[in-house]
């Protein structure tokens, strides 16, 4: 079985751990990158638990102030740079070629290099913990001049910058591969307006990575130069320039780590409603509008600086409710008069809808400068972005995992454990993060390891910490489910759910060449649903 053709970069199946690390098969690569990113999620989750443990009561119990600073920096950075971005792109690497009927990923070796860079970047970033002054302690956006050498002399911060440079460059490379695949390798009949919904979300994700991440590379490159050589940033304009550069990346990234999972929940809702996704064209339009707006809202992170035109950024930020509203409309309209089956992927998708709307409406809230003046940099913001990142991205991620696990592994997960996992996550998530809205409103700033006894914040903090323990349990249930599935190997068959897109037309897991048999005709964005509807 040699698949080595004239093209040279044909997928080559390889064996063993080492083989996987060198495989240019997009499935091995996607699964590998996904697993790496999920590992970082668990690691950053451990840091989060340590923080919640420390915050459960006033005073310092577990760590020093400096230790806490390292924890929130590495938690936030790992979550964004090493977990959420890579996991979003990994989903694309694995699924996009299958969804568009392609045999491979374009420039797979470039994407493979991206995977290695994520691993290397992560190891370098975390190596900071082994240095004398500890890991980076500058926060995930490392504002200058705090992040300059005199203020943060630890070499852990330089490691952290190098780690981000690697991870950010990797994201750019991988996004280029996924986008090129979509543009050049679509099956016959698959026009751009017949791309599956998930693939469309990957198009806009890649566009945002390609436009936003270079700003991060520049910001981190300049910061490293400033720390080592000096002379890059100076004075107030230096401080503001750094913020502009960073947030030009920093806002789009939250959509980068979110859109692929909008695509995933859209597929889940469509499949388990027995209907195709409602309002495909307005949806695609709303994605493009979202991506365009996402590049023009960065100044809302700077409302309190007195150095940006607040009204402009408030306008663009508030306008986001229009495309977001379209997506909710389409999701609900897809369920409308469907035939809904409550499989675990659907539960997570519905959980996503309910939790993300909390993150979204509070986002509109902080898009209003006079409201933001109070709650920015408080626990209100921490609550807001965890509702988008955990309620949105992570819930969507689990919807994706439960939906495509049978395709990727060829085995089924337990539905019963899946339901436990879902409900524990739902409860744990709200118990952990909802109290934080009140804490922020009452005046608790973010990034503090301690709070005064006189503040009256003890109960809500204790409740939040208890919730994080529930989240830990829910995660253990998930890992148990995964382990069980891999041991029992209940065969899933090619299409256990009644899928609508091409990946369900091949075996599970798909063979190296993806589609040994001829593809079904592609006349819409849901070719298998076409066949099903024609038959009944």
């Amino acid at each position, binding site marked *: 079985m040699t698949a080595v053709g004239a093209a040279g970069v044909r997928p080559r199946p390889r064996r063993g751990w080492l083989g996987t690390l060198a495989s240019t098969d997009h499935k091995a690569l996607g699964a590998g990158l996904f697993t790496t990113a999920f590992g970082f999620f668990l690691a950053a989750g451990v840091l989060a638990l340590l923080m919640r443990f420390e915050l459960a009561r006033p005073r310092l119990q577990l760590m020093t102030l400096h230790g806490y*600073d390292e924890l929130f920096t590495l938690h936030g950075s790992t979550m964004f740079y090493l977990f959420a971005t890579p996991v979003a792109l990994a989903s694309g690497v694995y699924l996009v070629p299958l969804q568009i009927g392609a045999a491979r990923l374009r420039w797979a070796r470039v994407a493979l290099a991206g995977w290695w860079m994520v691993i290397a970047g992560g190891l370098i970033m975390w190596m900071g913990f082994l240095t004398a002054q500890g890991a980076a*302690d500058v*926060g995930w956006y490392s*504002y200058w*001049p*705090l992040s300059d050498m005199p*203020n*943060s002399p630890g070499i852990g911060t330089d490691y952290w910058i190098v780690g981000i440079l690697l991870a950010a460059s990797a994201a750019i490379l991988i996004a280029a591969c996924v986008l090129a695949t979509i543009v050049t390798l679509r099956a016959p009949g698959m026009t751009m307006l017949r791309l599956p919904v998930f693939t469309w979300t990957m198009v806009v994700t890649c566009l945002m990575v390609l436009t936003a991440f270079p700003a991060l590379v520049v910001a981190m490159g300049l910061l490293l130069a400033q720390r080592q050589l000096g002379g890059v940033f100076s*004075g*107030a304009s230096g*401080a503001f320039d750094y913020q502009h550069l960073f947030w030009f990346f920093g806002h789009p990234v939250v959509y980068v780590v979110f859109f692929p999972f909008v695509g995933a929940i859209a597929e889940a809702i469509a499949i388990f*409603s*027995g*209907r195709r*996704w409602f*309002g495909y*064209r*307005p949806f695609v339009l709303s994605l493009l509008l979202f991506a365009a707006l996402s590049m023009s809202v960065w100044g809302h992170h700077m409302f*309190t*600086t*007195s*150095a940006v035109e*607040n009204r402009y950024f*408030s*306008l663009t930020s*508030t306008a986001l409710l*229009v495309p977001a509203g*379209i997506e909710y409309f389409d999701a*609900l309209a897809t*369920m*409308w*008069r*469907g*035939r*809904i*089956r*409550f499989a675990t992927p659907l539960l997570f998708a519905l959980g996503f*809808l*309910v939790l993300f*709307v909390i993150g979204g*409406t509070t986002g*509109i809230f902080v898009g*209003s*400068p*006079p*409201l933001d*003046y*109070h709650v920015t*940099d*408080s626990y209100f913001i921490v609550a807001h972005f965890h509702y988008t990142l955990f309620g949105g991205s992570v819930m969507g991620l689990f919807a994706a995992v439960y939906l495509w696990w049978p395709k990727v592994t060829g085995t089924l997960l337990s539905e019963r454990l899946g339901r436990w996992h879902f409900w524990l996550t739902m409860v744990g998530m709200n118990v952990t993060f909802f109290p934080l809205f009140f804490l922020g409103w*009452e*005046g608790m*700033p973010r990034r*503090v*390891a*301690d709070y*005064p006894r*006189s*503040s009256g914040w003890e109960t809500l903090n204790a409740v939040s910490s208890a919730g994080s323990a529930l989240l830990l349990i829910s995660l253990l249930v998930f890992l148990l489910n995964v382990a069980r599935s891999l041991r029992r190997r209940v065969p899933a068959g090619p299409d256990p759910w009644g899928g609508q897109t091409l990946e369900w037309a091949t075996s599970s897991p798909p063979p190296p060449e993806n589609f040994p048999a001829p593809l079904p005709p592609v006349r819409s964005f849901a070719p298998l649903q076409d066949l099903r509807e024609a038959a*009944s």
Partner: protein
Amino acid sequence: MRRAGYVAGVTDTRHEYDTLAGLYVPIGAAVVLLVALLVVAFAWRYRARPDDPDEQRRPSRIHRAPRTEALYVLVLACVAALLLWRTYTVEGRTDHAASGRGLGVLVTASKWHWRFDYPRLRIVQRGTDDAPPTLVVPARRTIDFTLRSLDVIHAFWIPDRRFKRDATPGFVSSFSLVFPRTGFWRYGGECSEYCGLRHTWMKFHVAVVSPAAFARWTRARQGGAA
């Protein structure tokens, strides 16, 4: 900066915040509840019932409704416009720079404490890393703050006033606040921008006193400082 709707004199930022939040929060809560309700209602109403005889029901094949969706977009745009209009109005009132007619207070943030200068009264309230200073202000009088930082970015936050501003080194920002109620707020002021090691404890107290008490305090401080 003079703007439409601007009234000379300084507004109560907390009141402005509450008014605006009084619009945003109910709309937001209604949206969240509506979505949750529709999700649950649709999930229940359209659930598959395999053991039901008339489960032969076929899922609807309608998958576009451009008119409805366009109309809906119009509604969304109107909501956005309403929110923006109110936001702009309120921002015009909370955002004006120091009025120049109030009591001037120069706030200096540095790692990791605060300092309050009352230049015209020649009073300085100086904090240390271990003893936070108290910002003493007369009630119901405009306070014109100028804010600066000596090292990294800090932020001046008085939760009770629902207001904060960044203190960026090399940049002076100015704003005015009024404090309508007298009282003492232990740790009523905080640094809200992460500024390094002791950010956690970079706080100050706020004492709002009657004009007469403020005059007494001024005299006592001036006498003591002279």
